[in-house]
Structures are given as C-alpha cells and as structure tokens.
C-alpha cells in the first residue's frame, strides 16, 4: 500500500473535484454504452466480452486437464475431447489473445498517452467491437451446435474433406473477427501518425505506443492472408475443388504455408503489446527511465519485420524441402535476438532503481521471467534436429503457453491492475492482488513446466489418452491447472468488488509518468480539459539520490 499512500500525498492537491464529469457518468443506459464512440467505453465493451470468452476457453482447458489426470478416457470421449481442444485454441487465440491488450488497453490508454481526445476514427472503433462481438456469436453458435474438431490450425484435408463438424460456421466467426482486427489496426496506425500532442516526436512516445503501432502494422498486413486462406478452405469444403485436397490434385502443404504465413506474425500480435505493457510498468515501479529506450523501440520494429519471415518453422517435418527448413531455422534464430535484447533491457532498468512490489510490478516481473523461459525454449524449437523430435509434442504446447499465458496473460493482468484506477476511479485491494499474482505464477509453472519434460519424453499433443508412463507429469500439470484456475478467479472477484467498494483513486496513484496520468481519474469523456504538450521525454522520472 505504500506506493499508494505517498503517491497520494504527492497528488493530493491534484485530486479531481468533479467526479460526475467522468466518462463513466456520461450516460447510464445500456444503449449509451453500446452506441458510444468514446474509446474508453469501447475499451470496456471489449474488456467485458474478452473476459467472457477467456472463461469459456478456460473451461474447455479445465475439462481437458481433468481428462488428462488419467491415461484412459474417463471424463469425455475422444470426439468431445477433440472438440474441446479446438474450442480452446480457437477461442483463446482469436477471441481472447489477439484482441486483448490492443483492444482493451490500447483503446483506453493510447489516445491518453499521446494527448489525443480519441482515436482517429471513433465510429470505426465502435464498428470494430461489433464485428468482434458478431464474429464471436458465430463461434458461440458453432460451439452450441456441437463444435468443431479440426484443431485451431484447420489442417487439410481433414478440415476440408473429412471432418463432419461445423467448420464453415467457425471459419465465418474467425473471418469476421479478423475484419475487426484490421479495422482496429488501421485506426491505431492513423492515430499514432496524426494525433500526437504537439512536440511529441516518435522518440518521445512511450514504448507501449510503439508496441501497439508495430502490432497494428502486423494486424493490417497479416490478417487478410488469414481471411483468404479461410475463404479458400471454405470454398474447397463447399464446392469440392482440389486446392488443398490431394485426392483432387491439390496440395495440403499449400494450406500450411498460407495458414502459417498469417499465424506466425499472429503470435507476435499477441506478445508485442505485452512487451509494451512491461515497458510501462517496470519504469514506473522502479522509478527509473527504461534502459536503452531507442534499442527497445528498434527491437519492437525488428521483431515485427522478422516475424513475417519465419513461418516455415512450423513445418520442419511436413515434407518441405531441407533448404527451406534451413532458411526458416536461421531466420527463427534471428528473431530471438531483438526479443533477448528486450529482456536484458528490462533487467537493466531495475539497476539502481527504487523498486516497489505492487501487483502490476509483480505481474510485470513475472512476465519478464516467464517470457525469458518461453523464449529460451524457442531456441530449442528453432534448432532443426531437436525440433524434429519435439514438434507436435507437449514441448511445443509448453513453449507457446509460456509465451502466451506466462507472457501475454500476465501482462494483460498487469495492465489491468496498473490502469485499473484510471479506468474505474477505484483502487483494487492490493493484498488480494499480490496474493493472486503469486498464486498465478506458482500455478502456471506447475501446470506448464512438466509439459516440457512430457514433450521430450514423446507425448504428442492433442492426445485424449496416453501411455501410462506419461501419467506422473500429467498429474502434476493438471494439479497446477487447478491452482491456476483459483488464481484467475481471484481477480475476477476482487476487481469487480472494487468497482463498487474500492477506495476512490487519486489522479495518479502510482506517481507514474505519462500523459494518461496527468488528467482526472477517471478521465472526462473528452480526455483533457486542455490538450497537453508532448515535448517531455518519456519515463521522465527524476534521478534518484543516495
């Protein structure tokens, strides 16, 4: 609580007098929320829908881990299990991770951070949410009608010829959500280019803005490829043409190339915003400028560019040529370099700082540690001969969960806690938040670390039953999942509680730098009474003494 109280003392004279003027009070009807062009309200629309999808996807995972307690089939049958892991993948990737940080915190904080009144195209922003919600409804419909069993990767010819589940309905949902992503990306790109406060050059932007910008470029350029790939898949399924179906002269590998050309950059859509969040939280709670700001900014751009060149590392055993595999392996090692730089820089930011361990900081530090581990295992997967053994096993499952859950979800929760006062005007209960962060960190590691070992032992992924030798590690993993579940339910509880009963927050409870903290908490609908000047450098924390 110490961070609150002394920051509160510093900011006492800046406490907003007129709470009634905040964006939250700008209309109380449901329609005022559903028709709002205000980026802050749209962010909350996204937050609610994303949270709902997260828990649906998490329930699927819970059932899967329950089944995997024992080697045999005793909770669900094979068909149901296959639908569960597909639902888990589709929902978590497209309905949760891809929109999460950009559409909630990018929407809420980015205009504030650059001193703007809103995004460049507020109505397009609202349309983005409706596209997301509409696409989500298609996915829910597919789920209610029995689901789909192709895996989130829709490999052909299983998905185009053999599966008799609701493939087209699911594809339609994903396609529509994809348009939401593109619209959001266009909006952020134009906003960052044209709505920055006077004096705010590119190298004065907070790194979160850089991260959202790079993510938006990937969203705009990669998502259309997914759209076309899914349309081609749907066309093959409906019109029985032979593009990916070898029985009709097509090539299943063509699908894989097209799919992964989007889906690899997609994983960077998921992690870059998380890196941006870490770059906001760590300087704030270390009371120090980010170490190596320019390198950090260039690393973000470097990651975004190279991300388009490595898709073939998902196909080392697919039958693609050895030369192609070697090129993709080399490039995959290259993309690890800027990611490594970022970890080193975050660590160096802590040096000679003045560090407080608030919940956001715990999440941010957890992010760095888990992202480091996940990134290191990426090296295993980039190594051709090792990948031949571990691809399509639980090793890969562990790797991407370290990055997506240990990385992106931790950062999402960190962002939620960091900006919670600004968004809601309330303080969350700090002790509960720290407890939840620690439970999540522990539960996460217990769930996913054993999976690396399972993978090297040879347990393939998407397995409903498994040889009994693999049971011990599976039990550990499922036990961890139970702990993780508790950890995730806690924030749902206390954050909602704080909306009604939390202490009112001062304008800048953390004493953070950044334009979003220089306006009222919560902000008025028009963000700033007078648009601020942007010429101060970012992370403008005064030098520490002693």
């Amino acid at each position: 609580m110490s961070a609150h109280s002394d920051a509160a003392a510093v900011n006492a004279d800046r406490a907003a007098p007129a709470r009634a003027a905040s964006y939250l009070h700008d209309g109380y009807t449901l329609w005022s929320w559903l028709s709002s062009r205000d980026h802050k309200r749209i962010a909350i629309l996204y937050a609610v829908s994303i949270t709902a999808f997260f828990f649906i996807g998490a329930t699927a995972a819970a059932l899967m881990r329950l089944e995997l307690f024992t080697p045999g089939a005793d909770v669900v049958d094979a068909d149901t299990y296959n639908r569960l892991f597909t639902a888990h993948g589709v929902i978590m990737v497209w309905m949760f991770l891809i929109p999460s940080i950009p559409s909630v915190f990018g929407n809420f904080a980015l205009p504030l951070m650059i001193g703007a009144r809103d995004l460049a195209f507020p109505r397009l922003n609202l349309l983005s949410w409706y596209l997301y919600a509409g696409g989500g409804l298609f996915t829910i419909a597919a789920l209610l009608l029995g689901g789909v069993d192709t895996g989130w990767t829709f490999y052909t010819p299983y998905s185009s010829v053999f599966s008799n589940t609701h493939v087209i309905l699911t594809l339609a949902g994903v396609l529509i959500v994809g348009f939401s992503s593109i619209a959001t990306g266009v909006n952020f790109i134009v906003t960052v280019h044209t709505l920055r406060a006077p004096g705010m050059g590119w190298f004065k932007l907070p790194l979160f803005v850089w991260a959202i910008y790079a993510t938006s470029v990937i969203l705009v350029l990669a998502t259309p490829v997914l759209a076309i790939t899914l349309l081609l898949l749907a066309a093959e399924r409906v019109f029985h043409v032979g593009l990916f179906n070898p029985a009709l002269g097509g090539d299943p590998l063509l699908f894989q190339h097209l799919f992964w050309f989007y889906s690899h950059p997609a994983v960077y859509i998921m992690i870059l915003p998380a890196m941006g969040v870490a770059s906001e939280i760590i300087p704030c709670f270390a009371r120090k400028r980010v170490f190596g700001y320019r390198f950090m900014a260039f690393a973000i751009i470097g990651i975004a560019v190279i991300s388009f060149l490595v898709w073939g590392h998902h196909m080392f055993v697919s039958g693609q040529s050895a030369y192609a595999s070697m090129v993709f392996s080399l490039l995959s090692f290259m993309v690890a370099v800027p990611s490594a730089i970022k970890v080193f820089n975050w660590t160096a930011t802590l040096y000679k700082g003045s560090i407080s361990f608030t919940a956001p900081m715990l999440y941010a530090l957890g992010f760095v540690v888990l992202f480091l581990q996940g990134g290191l295992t990426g090296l295993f997967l980039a190594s051709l001969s090792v990948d031949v053994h571990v691809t399509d096993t639980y090793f890969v499952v562990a790797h991407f969960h370290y990055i997506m859950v240990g990385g992106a979800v931790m950062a999402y929760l960190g962002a939620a806690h960091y900006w919670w006062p600004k968004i809601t005007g309330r303080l969350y209960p700090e002790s509960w938040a720290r407890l939840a962060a620690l439970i999540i960190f522990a539960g996460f590691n217990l769930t996913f670390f054993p999976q690396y070992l399972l993978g090297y032992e040879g347990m393939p992924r998407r397995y409903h039953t498994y040889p009994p030798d693999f049971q011990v590690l599976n039990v550990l993993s499922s036990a961890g999942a139970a702990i993780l579940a508790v950890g995730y339910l806690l924030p749902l509880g206390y954050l909602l509680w704080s909306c009604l009963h939390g202490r009112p927050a001062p304008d800048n409870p953390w004493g953070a730098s950044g334009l979003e903290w220089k306006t009222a908490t919560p902000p008025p609908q028009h963000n700033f009474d007078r648009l601020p000047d942007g010429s101060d450098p970012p992370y403008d924390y005064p030098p520490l003494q002693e």
Partner: protein
Amino acid sequence: MDAATPDSAQDIGRQAARTRLGMWAFLGSEVMFFGPVFFAYLYGRFMWPQAFEAASRGTDLLCGAVNTAVLLTSSLGVAVAHLLADRGAYGRARRALDAVVLLGLAFLAIKGYEYVQDWREQLVPGPHFHLQGAVNQAGAQLFYFVYFFATALHALHLTAGIALMLHCRRALRRRPGRPTLRRLEAAGLYWHFVDIVWIFLFPALYLAGRAL
C-alpha cells in the same frame, strides 16, 4: 468521423490527412488480401504452365479487354469528379459520378455475361468441369478456380466501390462540404485500387497463353 469538438482550425485541415492515411492503411491490407490469390495463381502457373496457359485461352478475351477499357475510363471519371468537386462544381461532379457508377455496373454486367458463358462451356470447377482439348484437366480446373475466386473477389470489391460512389453522390447533393470532399477522395483512392487489381488480373488470367 470527428472526435468531440476539434480544438483548432488546424485540426479540421488535419482531418483530411487522417482520412487519406486511413484509406492507404486499409489499402495496405487489401494488397495482402489479393496477394495470396496472386500467389495461388503463380504457384499453379509454375507447377503446371501448360495447363494454365491452355486454360487461360478459354477465357473471353473480348469481354476482358472491353472490361479493362470500361474500368480505366471509370477511373478517369473518378478523378474528374474529384477535381470538379474540389472546385465547387458539385452538379457536374455528380454527373461524373453517374458515369462512374454506370461504367462500374457495365463492368459487372459484362462479367456476369462471361460467367454465364463459362457455365455453359463447363468451365466452372466442380464435377462437370471439362476444358476442351486440355491434357491436364486437374491443372486447368485449378486455373479456373483461381479465375473465379479472383474475379469474384474483385467484383465484390467493385460492388462496394459502386456503393461508396453512390453514397458520395448523395452527399454531394445533400451536404457539400469538406467532410464530403474527404469521403470522395478516400472513395476515389479505393476505386483506383480496385482498378489496379484488375490491371494485374487481366494479363494474368486472360493473356497468359495468348502471347503472339
């Protein structure tokens, strides 16, 4: 498309830049939509060059060429409309847009006629596909799959463009002013993009096997 009250006159001027940049960013995504389709075409052309060339000879060169002229002229009409509207000649600008819409509809009509012909000639991919005289029917069918997919996607975009032009035309009558001019410029950019896509599609699909 504005946020709450603009803070200065400069802001109004910058709105045009925002609209333009937004359309260019969107067109970037559109390039990536058509990119994979061209990639599928190049893939097929590389793997089965003879089949693709033979299949391309089955397209209606006259219709394709006329459509190219129609679309290029319509792009001229868009540019003229924008120029006139900029100068305040809203009436004439609307007439230019009329021409654009008519030409766009003519394109769609000719394309529709071609599709009907293709159906009659059994060139629609599916169980009844058969290209006369082609040795590699599977390769030829793949060509026609790409042909229909690409031209249908293009026609869909053209239809959206026609709708945009009709919207701009109505705005010119109802509320001529800066926002309308911005929209017309953005719609114009979009129309030119659709035109450029066709300029790539035409030689790829119609001229592949017809080198003299």
